[in-house]
């Protein structure tokens, strides 16, 4: 169980270019961080470094008392524009698979679908969904299989006004339950956040 996220003095190099250095962040349970910065400043790279995909040039990333391997294996969710949903499969098949893969149950997947109002979309192939509907389907993972740390890459961008607000409520509920959120955003999130700005 992840109880904190500490990013200490990190630097990331991509394709020979130093994206940033000396970036630090301390996040406790119940806190959210809005990660901002111009395009290409390394927001997504930092999220991927926290998830363990991208190697750090310098610094370290820890998850409180939790073991790093275990934290990455079953303690965090990552939702971005590459959502892993297959266009040729139905929304129901994708939701059932991903919630089970992340450790959820069929009941929790149904509950998540109800909360995100996906019920009428479930029989459709993923290719028939709009960008916003697709994002809601990807977000159903967050609810179907509870994990403490949410890494979100521009979570609000494809959502309409109503769902931006609704997702704000879901994030608030996650934080109230002791969760943590690190979100790369351009627009402010509808919840109180600490902010971390990456330099250009």
């Amino acid at each position: 169980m992840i109880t904190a996220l500490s990013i200490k003095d990190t630097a990331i190099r991509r394709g020979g270019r130093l994206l940033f250095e000396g970036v630090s962040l301390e996040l406790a349970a119940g806190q959210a961080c809005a990660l901002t910065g111009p395009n290409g400043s390394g927001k997504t790279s930092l999220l991927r470094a926290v998830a363990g995909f991208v190697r750090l040039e310098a610094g370290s990333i820890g998850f409180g008392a939790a073991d790093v391997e275990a934290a990455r294996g079953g303690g965090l969710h990552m939702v971005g524009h590459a959502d892993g949903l297959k266009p040729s499969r139905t929304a129901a098949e994708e939701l059932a698979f991903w919630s089970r893969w992340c450790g959820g149950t069929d009941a929790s997947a149904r509950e998540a679908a109800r909360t995100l109002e996906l019920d009428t979309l479930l029989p459709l192939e993923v290719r028939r969904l709009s960008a916003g509907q697709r994002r809601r389907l990807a977000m159903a993972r967050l609810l179907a299989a509870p994990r403490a740390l949410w890494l979100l890459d521009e979570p609000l961008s494809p959502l309409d006004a109503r769902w931006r607000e609704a997702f704000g409520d879901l994030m608030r509920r996650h934080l109230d339950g002791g969760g943590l959120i690190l979100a790369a955003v351009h627009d402010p999130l509808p919840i109180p956040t600490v902010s971390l700005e990456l330099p250009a």
Partner: protein
Amino acid sequence: MSRLLALLGRETALAWGRGGGPLVAVGFYAGVTTFLPLAIGSEPTRLAAIAPGAAWVALALASLLSLERLFERDYEDGALDQLFLSPVPLELTCLIKCLGQWLANGAPLALAAPIAAISLGAGPDLAPLAFACALLGGLAFAFVGGIGAALSLGARRGGLLTAVIVLPLFVPPVIFGGGVLDAFAGGLPWSGGFALLGAYALGALAIGPVAMAAACRNALS
């Protein structure tokens, strides 16, 4: 366990639909084996002599067809990220992906193999052995091919690169498999070759997932 079964179901279903799936692979296989008599001449004795070997070469080529997309689509659409963020080791995930590939492509090809061998002039008594060899060989092709598919992740024209990486590794099963069928048709002992084919398939099953997982980690970073 339930998540591994769910993954196997999904991977088999995806492999079944990927790039036309087994129908295209079997169709290609049938196409190549009908081509041979046209090029070589339809004289039965000459054809019967090359039938087992030719069927094996066609099998190896048909197995290559759908390999390209084994990891690439998951890599592009982010599914590989999500598969990585799990308590299941990436090696096991890769193993299950290849098993799905084998079930959806290798098994249908193995069913077609005896038909192809017989239509090229091999005796009908060869059919069960041809099926068993193709099934084992298909397992080796799926796991060795998976290494090539994972190594070529992110490369442009990855399919061609996969073929170049993988074809040399397809040589041993083709030699062993073709040899077994030749020996059987000639009334010689064949169990040694069959054991070697099985050993190669098991070796691929053991080493393949480790190599694929390493290649995937490298591609994701």
